[in-house]
């Protein structure tokens, strides 16, 4: 079987399209590359969707935590504490079994017991909490002069938030937020190891890498392949966020711009 046939068979295997049976013996490098790459679809899906929705909740949570009114502040603080203070791994398990018991209450909760929805909800709340804390920190460090200038121009309420506070907050938080995005993508690899079932062996990249490592008893091939894919993904994320960063900083002189630096922040 040539490599092109393997790609045709397995490139969309993680979505259930193509050959049904996974290879069982005589694993070729091509098969490993294709299947692990196919699994990356899940990682990208979880990461992108959770980031897109999480961004808005994170802004809301950060505003809540910075609010004077304890009615907003306390829930936001607790939300951040619960999701940042406990391991994501345990959150996945807890959420999965919670959704399982909710399933018996109403069929409305049915999709939540499968990974595409249930794990996404957990990742969404988790990234919202982590980014909320980052945005809160940025809100706290907005220069006093910026807000005074906005007041002097007669801006207030929503206009002041949209024109001054929010863009400044994003600009200050962006390097840290980039970091958060990278490690969110890394965290997506936990999904299929934490209760959520991979139906018909449709798993993510690590699921397939683990499959090959178990079958061949040789970790030295699949894991480096996985690592290669993730390094590429990380570089793409840094590139895209770098574009946004330069747009957020476009009014500043070159030397005052904040550079994006990757700092390991690791497991959550």
């Amino acid at each position, binding site marked *: 079987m040539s490599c092109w046939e393997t790609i045709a068979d397995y490139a969309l295997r993680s979505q259930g399209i193509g050959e049904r049976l996974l290879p069982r*013996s005589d*694993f070729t490098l091509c098969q490993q590359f294709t299947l692990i790459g196919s699994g990356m679809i899940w990682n990208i899906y979880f990461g992108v969707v959770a980031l897109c929705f999480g961004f808005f909740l994170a802004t809301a949570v950060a505003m809540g935590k910075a609010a004077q009114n304890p009615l907003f502040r306390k829930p936001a603080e607790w939300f951040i*504490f*619960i999701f940042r*203070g*406990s*391991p*994501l*791994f*345990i*959150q996945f*398990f*807890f959420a999965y*079994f*919670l959704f*399982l*018991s909710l399933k018996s209450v109403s069929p409305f909760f049915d999709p939540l017991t499968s990974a595409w929805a249930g794990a996404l909800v957990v990742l969404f709340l988790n990234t919202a909490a982590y980014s909320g804390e980052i945005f809160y920190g940025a809100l706290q460090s907005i220069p006093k002069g910026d807000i005074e200038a906005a007041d002097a121009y007669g801006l207030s309420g929503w206009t002041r938030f949209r024109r001054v506070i929010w863009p400044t907050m994003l600009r200050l938080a962006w390097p840290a937020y980039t970091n958060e995005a990278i490690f969110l*993508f*890394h*965290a997506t*690899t*936990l999904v299929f*190891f934490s209760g959520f079932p991979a139906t018909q062996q449709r798993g993510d990249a*690590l699921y397939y*890498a*683990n499959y090959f*490592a178990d*079958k*061949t*008893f*040789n*970790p*030295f091939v699949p*894991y480096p392949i*996985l*690592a290669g894919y*993730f*390094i590429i993904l*990380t*570089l793409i994320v840094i590139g895209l966020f770098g574009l946004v960063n330069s747009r957020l900083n476009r009014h500043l002189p070159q030397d005052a711009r904040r550079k994006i630096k*990757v700092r*390991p*922040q*690791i*497991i*959550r």
Partner: protein
Amino acid sequence: MFSYCTDPATLEGFQWLSCYLTTGKHMSMYYAFGTVLLLLAITAPTALAFGFAGASAARSTVAPLRWIGKTYIAIVRGIPDIAFFLFFVIALDQAFEYIRHRIKCPDWTEPVRQGNDFVVCTAAKLPLGNAPQWVHETYGFMLAVLTFAIVFGAFAANVLFGAMRAVPKGQLETAEAYGMSRRQTFWRVLVPQMWVYALPGLSNLWMVLIKATPLLFLLGVEDIVYWARELGGAKQPQFTDYPHPDWRMWYFGALLIFYLCFTKVSEVVLDRIMAKLTHGQATTAGERQRKAAA
């Protein structure tokens, strides 16, 4: 456990619960909490030692040593750490067996990798096939500790490398002016001063390490996650004295609360240490302390 526990079927409410929560299997689960604490107690200093070695290597004047140190630091940045955990456990196990194989069975001619199998002679198996159960468990645990130490050592190396660079240049130049050798400068001036700069990063790392402990489950150790799954699952009356429906949600809820309390306590303690260390320092935090006291 208690004297009234002899016939659980007759018990009600609180009494039933007190008996249920003190069965032998639950006791094993409480020991598993001890395993987590033991893992933290062993891993933290080991990872710090690995990190220190890595950071010192990255600063070395010998080029190959420096490359090794820098690679060690860089390797953890782009790859999900859980992949490391899954990788190192098998890789270390095979490495140990291969080395023992080479030493103990020199006249073995067949290749070690035969297709999908990894074959070493029986004398080189780790642990030996006839070893008692506790040896297997301890070996698994030690592999887990080593894996944690390697991965977290890389993170610690990153923090310490940054801290070493944060020590003011003037301090090192002064040491040189006093005629100290490079080695003396390193041990007598750089190392004692770097800890203040390293502490924020290290305390962050400690929090991350706490949150990484459930991954022990993936490494095949019978830890709290294992027991929560085991004990929480629905139990039928014919197999156990304490039948109950699927309670895994409550078990994992308890684990969640355990970790929340643990991180909260660590946070408070680390804040105290930081306050102690910044006292009288010429940093922003130290300045704020001085103003608050005045």
